[in-house]
């Protein structure tokens, strides 16, 4: 077996220098400290993304993206196709778990200040990837063409329409017309299976390349302790030590995913009717709940702005600050932790949790 591995490696090495990859893996190390557990969240997110791609391809075998067929085709997958209910349930649960782990990954990077120099671009590519994941969630939500998803899309695209200047254009671009119709479904299907996967692949490659190039960050508190001689730098080989631990995380995620998908199969709801009233209890996916609830509390007018536009402006400004944190938190570049940015992170988590809980009441 070892000879076969060596022969294969030699064959590949002669053609494109595969030996350097092995050499790189052999020498790559990962820092070890009391925060190392958080380093596995990115890997779990990537694993769930791969599950999404695989189950998405399987769903494509039966799904039909037209208003007359979409709901029925998902119903067919869930009731007629062998294990169709499981594939669809895994796809839906995995999407939600992936966004959850992506959020955990982002907040752990934020609080451990891993965005500081020279990892600003790793942060930027990661945040853009999270936006892409939210785009996957938003576009995929409509695809079963059920009542909840229909109205969630109506509200979401209407919000995009309130952006000054380009809002009307954006609304028509997203909906494929003035209203949410079959044209919207076809577009969202295109975004979900072609545009977003393309963008995600490029950004993911960039993100992983930067992580490999720059290595994993050591938190400032650990760095300080090492510098002051209170601790010694520790590390472990990436291959196989870290990778095997990563795989344990993947396996645990697979267990949780399988359990949730089998015990709580994802529901389909009722077919969308464009001329029915929005039902009581309507709400978007959990990761948009805080925005949904905030819009409920905003009055019709805030100063001279319409409430929905003021809300959108607020979220846009907050997102911009969040994206630009590595450039705004200047003190961290000198190894000093700014309490303001730590406090900001705690406030953001508190805001998301409290508003989401209020929406679920």
């Amino acid at each position: 077996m070892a000879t076969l591995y060596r022969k294969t490696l030699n064959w590949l090495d002669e053609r494109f220098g595969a030996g350097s990859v092995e050499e790189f893996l052999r020498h790559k190390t990962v820092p070890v400290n009391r925060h190392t557990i958080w380093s596995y969240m990115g890997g779990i997110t990537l694993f769930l993304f791969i599950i999404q791609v695989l189950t998405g391809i399987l769903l494509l075998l039966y799904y039909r993206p037209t208003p007359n067929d979409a709901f029925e085709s998902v119903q067919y997958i869930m009731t007629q196709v062998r294990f169709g209910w499981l594939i669809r349930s895994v796809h839906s649960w995995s999407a939600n778990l992936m966004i959850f782990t992506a959020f955990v990954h982002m907040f752990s990077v934020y609080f451990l200040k891993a965005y500081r120099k020279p990892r600003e671009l790793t942060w930027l590519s990661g945040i853009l990837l999270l936006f892409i994941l939210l785009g996957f969630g938003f576009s995929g939500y409509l695809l079963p063409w059920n009542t909840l998803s229909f109205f969630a899309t109506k509200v979401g695209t209407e919000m995009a329409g309130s952006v000054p200047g380009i809002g009307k254009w954006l609304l028509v671009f997203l909906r494929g017309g003035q209203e949410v119709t079959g044209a919207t479904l076809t577009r969202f299907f295109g975004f979900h299976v072609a545009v977003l996967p393309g963008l995600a692949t490029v950004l993911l490659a960039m993100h992983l390349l930067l992580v490999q190039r720059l290595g994993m960050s050591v938190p400032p508190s650990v760095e300080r302790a090492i510098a002051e001689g209170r601790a010694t730098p520790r590390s472990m080989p990436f291959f196989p030590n870290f990778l095997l631990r990563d795989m344990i995380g993947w396996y645990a995620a697979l267990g949780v995913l399988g359990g949730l998908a089998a015990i709580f199969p994802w529901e389909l709801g009722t077919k969308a009717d464009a001329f029915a009233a929005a039902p009581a209890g309507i709400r978007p996916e959990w990761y948009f709940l805080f925005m949904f609830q905030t819009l409920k509390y905003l009055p019709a007018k805030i100063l001279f702005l319409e409430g929905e536009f003021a809300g959108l402006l607020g979220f846009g400004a907050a997102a911009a600050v969040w994206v630009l944190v590595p450039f705004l938190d200047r003190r961290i570049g000198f190894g000093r932790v700014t309490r303001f940015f730590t406090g900001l992170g705690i406030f953001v988590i508190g805001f998301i949790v409290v508003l989401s809980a209020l929406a679920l009441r």
Partner: protein
Amino acid sequence: MASIISFIYPAMRYIIPPPVTESPSRFVVAAKVGELKNNSGKIFKFGSRAAILVRLVDGSYRAFSAVCTHLSCTVQYRSDLREIWCACHNGLYDLEGRNVSGPPPRPLERYEVHIQGEDVVVTRTA
């Protein structure tokens, strides 16, 4: 630069669909007389959009656009509140169509209602 524009411009125009001309119809039969009980409502199709017909407690009719002025959800009549309610963000309109509570910024567009024989006919005024 010119060649870049010559490639991008058609693509940008392509992704925006041609405008759809709305049905010129200014009226629609929303219901049959006696179809709606007092203190109830019904959503009906008016052109390409949803509209709502409400039969008040006294038996008279009112009709409005059913598109919430907040974020375009379809509203419904709440017989318990005797008001028009949007489930998406808890907006309320009174039976004149005025936005009275919640985030909606404007009143609902009001339509005229006439009884013609057995039909309840709703007419767009503007």
